[in-house]
């Protein structure tokens, strides 16, 4: 058996919940599919109307219910369908990343980024990068999860 660090588990496939905003990132994901780009199968997409809808409750629930990482994708700043929804997301998610780190969870299990409806390639790149980043971190094992 090959040597491995305690974090790496053989055959570990990260489970990723991705919140995609309806107007840009979901369309971007769709475009990636239509263009037959190679996408990691680890992503569980959840369509939300705006990245501003992604409350910390949704992120925490995903992590506690078994996700190893959470990806939040929205329209680029200035392009939000609702004007300023992503202005809130861009403050909220980094703040939650800091609080997670403070509580002892790796911040890189949560990522916020922007993908427009035309950026199929960008969607494939970000999802692949994120899956690999979480794979490197290993499974999220929280005693917090017991019984959930």
């Amino acid at each position, binding site marked *: 058996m090959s040597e491995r660090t305690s974090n790496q588990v053989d055959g570990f496939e990260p489970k990723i919940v991705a919140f995609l905003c309806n107007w840009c990132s979901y369309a971007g994901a769709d475009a990636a599919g239509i263009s037959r780009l190679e996408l990691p199968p680890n992503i569980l997409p959840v369509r939300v109307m705006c990245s501003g809808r992604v409350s910390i409750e949704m992120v925490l629930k995903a992590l506690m219910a078994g996700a190893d990482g959470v990806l939040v994708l929205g329209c680029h*700043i200035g392009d939000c369908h609702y004007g300023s929804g992503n202005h809130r997301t861009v403050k909220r998610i*980094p703040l939650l990343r800091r609080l997670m780190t*403070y509580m002892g969870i790796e911040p890189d299990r949560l990522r916020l980024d922007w993908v427009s409806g035309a950026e199929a390639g960008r969607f494939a790149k970000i999802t692949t990068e994120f899956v690999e980043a979480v794979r490197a971190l290993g499974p999220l094992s929280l005693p917090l999860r*017991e019984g959930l």
Partner: protein
Amino acid sequence: MIEDIRALARELLEKGTVECVIGYEVGPTGRVRPAFVYEPADVERLIFDARCYHNLVTYLTRRNKPRKKGEEVPTTAVLVKPCDARSLQVLLNENQVQRDKVYIIGVACPGMQNADGTPELRCTRCDQRVPLIYDVLCGEPPEVPAVTDTYDDVERIEALPLEERLAYWLGELDRCIRCYACRQACPTCFCSVCEAERDDSLWVGIADRIPEKAFFHIIRAFHQAGRCAECNACEAVCPMGIPLSLINRKVAKDVAQMMAGYRAGESEEPTPLVTMLTGEEAIDEIH
């Protein structure tokens, strides 16, 4: 100072300017507790000293509705220290309290003390001795100590390795009995139905177990982001001695760092978490 407060309270009640004065009194066990004075004859009950740690602003949101249908919202006078005034400012910014329905009796704050006479930790970090907002100020403003809050308590936790931090918080939060005293004592935790206390909540269950307890504490602290005035009311009432201020202060520190030095209750701007970008933020790289 207390004579000024009593005289003012008597005048306000006699003239009918306010329906009730919320202040402090000594209870039957000798401990200081909040007092609700409705009659001019009762103003002698009022006291003010270094034991008056409670944040009375908590009671204002509950009084911000008419007694009976068709009646006006009653007017209330309330005693505020500088930290209490900051949480009152937050409530005013959020339209939870009407400015013309509250008469603010500001007190020049001597700093609060623990039962053994030592100064309360939060007061050793506080650089305000006069409330930022009041209608009348009682007492002579003491000299303002030259202190800067270094957030050394938060930094001590930040310096621990990741696994130790997780172990530390799981240990602390495991003691929580979900009595919600912290939430009740907090002036800026005013939702009529708390999402942590619903049996049909979509997000957090009501069980008294570690996952739900940790979940509750993270959302509680996050809902106070840019709103917590660091009055420490939550920690003061916790029967299990959970260091809630360590979580609140971590969030406050990050909000100040990322959102151009924003501090809750020091301006009429609402928490930056609900406003648009101004271009002055120093938000971390988003990925």
